[in-house]
């Protein structure tokens, strides 16, 4: 018998993943952090400028606008996706004809590339040629809303399209979690006279706490990564009023060739994403400890 639980064997097995993680996660973050302190233009030798790039970003009103838009998308997405996908998972758990096909249909938007999702929805939400406004105009609405390309509804539309493309994926996670719940606990509660709502609220939801946490973190990190959707759906416009953090970072870094501020932006996004995700997990652990 070969024992694998010795320290050096464990280390050997972990090293490949550690190398991969260092090369593709730690190194790029460190690289970005270094160049965020310089006047790098994408090539050549940069000069050290300290925190000037961060000061430039914090004094840029469009940075704050992109942060606000990201928060709007995050709040709408989390508030809608978590309960909606959980409800869908509960529904899909019931045995009915066509359940499997319905699960696949709900999941389908999740496998479409985000850039294509954006392209599809342009033809639905465009204020002039979009399907929605054409239907509204036919229905007699004289001034249909400007879903995209206007000053206010851009982030909301981005959130709705993100929800459409993500809810199926989240539903799959909840569905898998529901499948793993012990059936005898539910059965026992039925014998005790618990209603379906009471079973869901008092038994299923608490037992699915970890799944809720994982889904919330995944949705949060995916919101922070939104780029192709914004790029194709609104182009960040009008004049950057619908930019999210990553799409505006792309504009600063590659379109305006300001790599120093762009890298500073990347560092800020990394820190913000980590704070929100870790913070949420810590809060959940605190509640778990209190309950225990």
């Amino acid at each position, binding site marked *: 018998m070969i024992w694998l639980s010795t320290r050096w064997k464990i280390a050997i097995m972990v090293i490949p993943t550690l190398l991969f993680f260092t090369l593709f996660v730690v190194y790029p973050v460190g690289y970005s952090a270094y160049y965020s302190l310089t006047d790098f233009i994408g090539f050549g030798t940069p000069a050290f400028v300290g925190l000037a790039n961060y000061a430039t970003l914090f004094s840029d009103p469009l940075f704050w606008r992109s942060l606000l838009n990201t928060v709007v998308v995050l709040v709408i997405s989390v508030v809608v996706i978590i309960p909606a996908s959980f409800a869908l998972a509960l529904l899909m758990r019931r045995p009915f004809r066509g359940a499997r096909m319905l699960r696949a249909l709900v999941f389908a938007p999740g496998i479409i590339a985000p850039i294509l999702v954006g392209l599809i929805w342009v033809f639905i939400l465009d204020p002039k040629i979009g399907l929605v406004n054409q239907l509204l105009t036919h229905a007699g609405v004289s001034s249909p809303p400007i879903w995209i390309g206007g000053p206010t509804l851009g982030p909301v539309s981005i959130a709705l399209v993100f929800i459409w493309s993500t809810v199926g994926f989240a539903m799959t996670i909840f569905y898998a979690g529901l499948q793993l719940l012990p059936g005898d606990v539910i059965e026992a509660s039925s014998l005790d006279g618990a209603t379906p709502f009471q079973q869901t609220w008092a038994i299923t939801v608490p037992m699915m706490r970890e799944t809720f946490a994982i889904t919330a973190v995944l949705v949060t990190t995916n919101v922070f990564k939104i780029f192709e959707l914004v790029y194709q759906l*609104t182009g960040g416009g*009008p004049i950057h009023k619908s930019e999210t953090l990553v799409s505006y970072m792309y504009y600063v870094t590659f379109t*305006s060739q300001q790599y120093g501020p762009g890298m500073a932006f990347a560092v800020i996004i990394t820190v913000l994403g980590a704070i929100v995700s870790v913070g949420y997990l810590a809060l959940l652990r605190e509640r778990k400890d209190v309950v225990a």
Partner: protein
Amino acid sequence: MYNAAHASLWKRRLVGVSVLVTSLALLAGCSTGTGSSGSTTITLSMQQTDVKKGDPTTWAIVQAFEKKYPNIKVTVTGQPVAQHNQAIDVAAQSNTLPTMFWLFSADTGKKLNKAGALLDLNPILKDEGLTSSFNKTVLDSFSDGGKQFGVPYQALLTGFYVNKKILADNGLTQPVTFDDLVAVSKALSAKGITTIANGASQSSFSVWAFLTCLDRFGYDDVIKDILAGKASYSNPDFLKFYEALAELQKAGAFSSNVATQTYNQAVDDFANGKAAFLDSGVWASGQLQSSPVGKDTGFWVGPQFSNGVGEQKIVMNVVGAPLAVSASVKKGSPEYAAVEKFIGFYYGDAGQQIFADNGQPPVTTFAPKIASSNTVFQSVLDAAKGLAVPLAQPDQYLSTASQNVMYDSIYGVIEGQLSPQDAVDMVQKSIAANK
């Protein structure tokens, strides 16, 4: 008897050999340089995803060049402008620039030149006898520190394409002044017809005709002082330009989806008879000639302003972006010889005639023959004849960051998102921050 360990060993060997063979095959297909048959391959990276459709001039030149020099293969690649710019920056950082490539602006070229990434083209121009084929100002635009880092890609002759049929069908004539344009806009807007086709999404630079309007408010006279900090972009004359834009916006001149529409969609709208004017340049003449509106399309250099500054009868007819060559192309190498021949062909009489055949004016002093069927291109040349020409397009004086802010300032007013004062202030702020 079946031996599982033996079968496993042979399976691993088979996988390893397959990976090795595949890797070698991929590596063999991926390189520039001289092949075993003595042919040389060079790469040309452009700012169009489909170079054959989007840049027929360059495509035709490459085909003709390869026919003339069968031992030289030009691999043409292309991406949209933003991705192309990003790819060039990354390639410059990693010393993997293509052999030849389009650059967004002279400003980018100067930065790459300072970083030592570009080849000095003076020896090539001299060896090919091309130095005197250009106007001096043309070559000066793309030289820095005594080095010729770029050569002109194509001419930047911009303005408005005009659908004369739409105007005639609505009892209107082609405008001359800005007030005429406002009147036309109000008349067309009342009938639900788009006056000026523009697209801001992913193409914020597509405001060529309006950039020329800045020159009708004295831009050329003051920009050097502005850049030196002795004057401000936020001045009464430029404010008048943006106020004129706001007046056009209120007159309904622009499509309601200008913010979500791309430049290519705007071209499609015009080409399908859905807009009376298209803000574009001579590069679109070929595409429009073969469109349903080809026979009805004319060209207009843009409005004259009664409250403008300086000469109003001007046309933007300058050199645009440069083509550059990677510094990794070493003198004496087969790639250098191939590049030399390509540049010689591109700027020679044969190459410049191909320009004219595809609706582009030559960038040298060559006088081409223009086919009588090329009515759109001829209308562009006719409209530009005899008019004064600014030194450069207004954005070409600025850094890349400030260029983008300038485009945003114009589209911001067009989209009704910025007041004229906010527009001039934001450009001034960017110029001051990006000296």
